[in-house]
């Protein structure tokens, strides 16, 4: 089936069938945040355990969703685990920038995307497997599936930061 292979790369299906960091963490001490995609009903629950040095010591993902949302969450958890909050935010920015390529194309406002403020950090945070999700931008209605867990992680990290300030 032409086109489908662009979307459903083998590594995506692998993460969908065998999700990494699937489960729950006791909260507290971990932080628990729920994310919803109101269009399709997908739900993701992100548990993060941030240590005293601002490092994501552990992360677990729960919830239900399609192959794109579930594999994106799985890859995200593997990519940010053990990294600092700043690095996770930088990776999130990079990933969302990749996902919004299409939105900019059809946005028609003529503005260039702003330079990534965290360029120096992204150099150390490569997308790696997450590059496999690049094909999603050809299927605009699925972009929200791919970004659901990232938005939920951002919210979780914001909440952790607020709780500590």
């Amino acid at each position, binding site marked *: 089936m032409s086109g489908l292979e662009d979307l459903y790369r083998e590594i995506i299906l692998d993460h969908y069938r065998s999700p990494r960091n699937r489960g729950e963490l006791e909260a507290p001490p971990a932080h628990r945040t729920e994310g919803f995609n109101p269009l*399709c*009903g997908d739900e993701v629950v992100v548990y993060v355990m941030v240590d005293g040095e601002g490092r994501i010591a552990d992360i677990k993902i729960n919830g*239900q969703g*399609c192959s*794109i949302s579930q594999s994106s969450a799985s890859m995200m958890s593997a990519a940010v685990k053990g990294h600092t909050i700043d690095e996770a935010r930088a990776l999130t920015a990079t990933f969302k920038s990749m996902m919004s390529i299409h939105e900019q194309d059809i946005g028609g406002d003529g503005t260039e995307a702003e330079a990534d403020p965290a360029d120096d950090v992204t150099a150390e945070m490569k997308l790696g497997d997450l590059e496999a999700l690049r094909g999603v931008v050809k*299927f605009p209605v*699925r972009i929200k599936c791919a970004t659901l867990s990232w938005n939920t992680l951002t919210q979780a990290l914001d909440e952790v930061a607020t709780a500590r300030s």
Partner: protein
Amino acid sequence: MTTTPPSPPLATLDVAAIRRDFPVLSQRQDGHRLVFLDSAASSQHPRQVLDAMTSFYETSYANVHRGVYQLAERATAAYEGARGKVARFIGAPSSNEVVFTKNATEAINLVAGSWGRANLGPGDAVVLTLMEHHANIVPWQMLAAQLGFEIRWVPLTDDGHLDLTDLDRLLDGAKLFAFTAMSNVLGTLNPVARLTAAAHEKGALALVDACQWVPHLPTDVVAMGADFVAFSAHKMLGPSGIGVLWARAELLEAMPPFLGGGGMILNVTTEGFVADAPPGRFEAGTPPIAEAVGLAAAVDYLTGLGMDAVHRHEVELTGYALRTLRAEVGDALTIYGPSEPSERGGVLSIALEGVHAHDISQVLDTQAVCIRPGHHCAKPLMRVLGAPATARASIYVYNDTDDIDALAAALVAARDFFKL
């Protein structure tokens, strides 16, 4: 030798001829025939509806109930003629009982915001069911948060019917029972007359969400025993942007206005206003005029087909779909809702083991099969089903066995693509 012809079968639909009336269905997508199986969300339009609206815009458009010139008179006649046609189509005793709204959602909000606000308060109860669309849940929740009444829920049986065991107890002290005539997820056809009678026995009024009923079955609001009936034109071959609230005349007479503005008043002074009589009282502002003309053409089209024949066609095709999908797709397939075709409308909510509804829909789109993934605006029901999302195929007058065969083949392709 002569042969005795068999007795003529009951009139059914000439689907091939019907399909020729729908321009959208003649297109091809990636070389495939377009298989449109999402009519429960919104249906397609026959040329007769499109032509009626175009002709109205080209020859007779003006605002209604205002001008004295001939164009305005023709527009008003067309708009009010549509009201009469809708009234006859649903068995309404009077066209003054037909209120045009934006859609069924607005019709239910109208009942909540007008009748509900005037009649509900602390200690009262509104009874809903667990198979309601959000359109018949959220307006009541919004109002309950303001007025402090209770919302009670009729549960479901395992096979997707309403569980009426405790209905009388649930209706005790209730002022309104608001329920769907047919589930937009399960396809379940509810015993409308029995439910309205149960409500009336307890002194409650009955609101019927008939969005999935009016397009598919003969409708008689009096036989239904309903007090309020809501439905949308865009699910019955008509345009988006217009819906209908039918209510018994004496209820409408007693109800305060919902939206305020032009068209709904008898007089306005600096001190206040005097509201017009129904249905104008509930149609503030310029209404969907050409949309009413389109709705009237859709009513004519469906009347021409015969609603009995429409229903018979859908029962037959639903039965064919249930048999075909089970045989072709196999054990990985779950079809929610009643298994007996006569107990359901043409809505098939499907789950494929291990494949999310979004992914099913994506694969089906490559074969030009249009279905709907998601929660279908019925999240409380999805929670009961234990499914965050289903893939929903829904049929209408222009669907045939070829469409079902294409759906089955595409589901097999989805199953195989994800290597189950």
